[in-house]
């Protein structure tokens, strides 16, 4: 239990090549500064699980060759169009894609949260998502009558990685309404959070803030990374940097442009 704030690189040190890492959606507190730090370190072969979808973070990691497998309901740049490096990787067959649907990811992560091996979910029957997921099963509802239902195995990530507004010196992290961060922190073996700033005092001692706080019990390390979600938004703090995302979409359309983006905005930023 050493959740006292660390230097960013030190906080990320335990995320080894090949780790299964769960990350939040575009609007839900993406640890972009940490993602860039992992790329500078040359992280490889990640098994990325998006809860439930991703945008720039997955595209950047995939484009840089850091992802072996992605389990997701979608990767897209939203208003800025398709995610170009994700698309290229699928067409070029350089990553393993495990197509899912949003609630299947939530449910599988919730199964890990509960410590149960699987969880049922409605829907999916008759879809090709199910057809291409040999790890998913259909059973006849044992409490019903001729009622097929899908079973999903628990997803137990090695790490949850996200960015939030603030943490205290006890490693408690305030997430407010972004409760998927709580779910992933409960499910993952270890959780690493970056935050905008440190909070004086103990978040759990405040009756208002404690309800939106991930207890330090679940957090392995915290690092302060101001504007750590940039260029993605951190709701209640700052909006997305639309101009930058448009520039990313333009550059990442080609492998050469993407390499230039990495040089300018990932590798060169260490000194900044």
């Amino acid at each position, binding site marked *: 239990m050493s959740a006292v704030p660390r230097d960013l690189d030190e906080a990320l040190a335990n995320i080894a090549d090949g780790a299964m890492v769960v990350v939040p959606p575009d609007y*839900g507190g993406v640890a972009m500064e940490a993602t860039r730090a992992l790329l500078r370190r040359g992280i490889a072969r990640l098994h990325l699980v998006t809860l439930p979808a991703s945008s720039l973070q997955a595209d950047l990691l995939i484009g840089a060759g850091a992802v072996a497998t992605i389990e997701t309901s979608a990767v897209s740049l939203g208003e*800025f169009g398709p995610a170009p490096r994700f698309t290229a990787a699928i067409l070029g067959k350089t990553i393993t894609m495990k197509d899912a649907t949003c*609630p299947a990811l939530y449910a599988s992560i919730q199964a890990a949260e509960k410590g149960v091996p699987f969880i049922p979910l409605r829907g999916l029957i008759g*879809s*090709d998502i199910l057809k291409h997921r040999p790890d998913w099963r259909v059973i006849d509802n044992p409490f019903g009558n001729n*009622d097929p239902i899908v079973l999903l195995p628990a997803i137990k990530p090695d790490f949850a990685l996200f960015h939030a507004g603030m943490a205290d010196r006890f490693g408690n992290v305030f997430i407010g309404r972004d409760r998927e961060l709580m*779910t992933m922190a409960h499910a993952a073996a270890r959780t690493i959070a970056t935050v905008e700033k440190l909070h004086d005092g103990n978040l759990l001692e405040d009756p208002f803030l404690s309800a939106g706080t991930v207890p330090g019990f679940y957090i392995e390390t915290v690092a302060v990374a101001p504007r750590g979600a940039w260029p993605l938004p951190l709701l209640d*703090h700052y909006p997305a940097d639309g101009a930058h995302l448009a520039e990313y979409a333009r550059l990442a359309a080609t492998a050469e442009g993407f390499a230039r983006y990495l040089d300018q905005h990932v590798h060169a930023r260490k000194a900044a």
Partner: protein
Amino acid sequence: MPGFLPEELLADVIMRLIGDVRHVAVGNASPIPATAALALRERGGGKPYVSLLGSRRHMFFTDGGRELFDCAGQGRVDVFFLSGGEIDGAGNINLVSIGDYAQPNVRFPGSFGSGYLYYVVPKVILFRVEHSRRTLVPRVSFISAPGGNAENVHRPGGPVALVTNRCLFSFDRTAKRFRLDSVHPGHTVADVIENTGFDFDRPDEVPVTPAPSAETLALMREVVAPQLAEVYPQFAQRVFGLKVAAASSE
């Protein structure tokens, strides 16, 4: 000049399709449905509840992203919207890929919540602005979610309509077929047939989609557009001329 944009007409059509319900949820990449839902809520003085994914202000959920799906699973989401890289005449939607799944020719972002919400939300309104033989196909390459299921499959929900830039189709869940309900101003039935890759039913006389009223247009432009800009700044700028918030300011 008609005095309204195609996006405004489609949002108006969707407002009528939503009807009188308690809870409308709007997912990813759905600015036109979001416009419709927010406009309807304004007109209804706060009814229906609107859950706009990615929004802080227009989203009441406090239990994370899963709450939308839990809520829908209980039957507490009345209307949702889905699109597709391909949509076929049986209401199957494809958000994944074209060609062999293992070696696709085209890859789309992914299925998002469709593999579940299409089954459990009573009124799913399909929208696909581009109405062409490329998007409206005889048979989708990949079924992200089927238009219908066998009798014994739990399926309280499914498609009720498909809105495109050319027309409005309704969906008959028993026949598993689309029916042409109206053609938008400036388009013809011949256009629709020419540009649709699947077979559909139609009455002898196909009405023209009514234009949005001045009241609805004012509501969208003056009240809804600024609300929309939180989640869809690019759309709000392109369609309604709203300035995008400076991203670098705190």
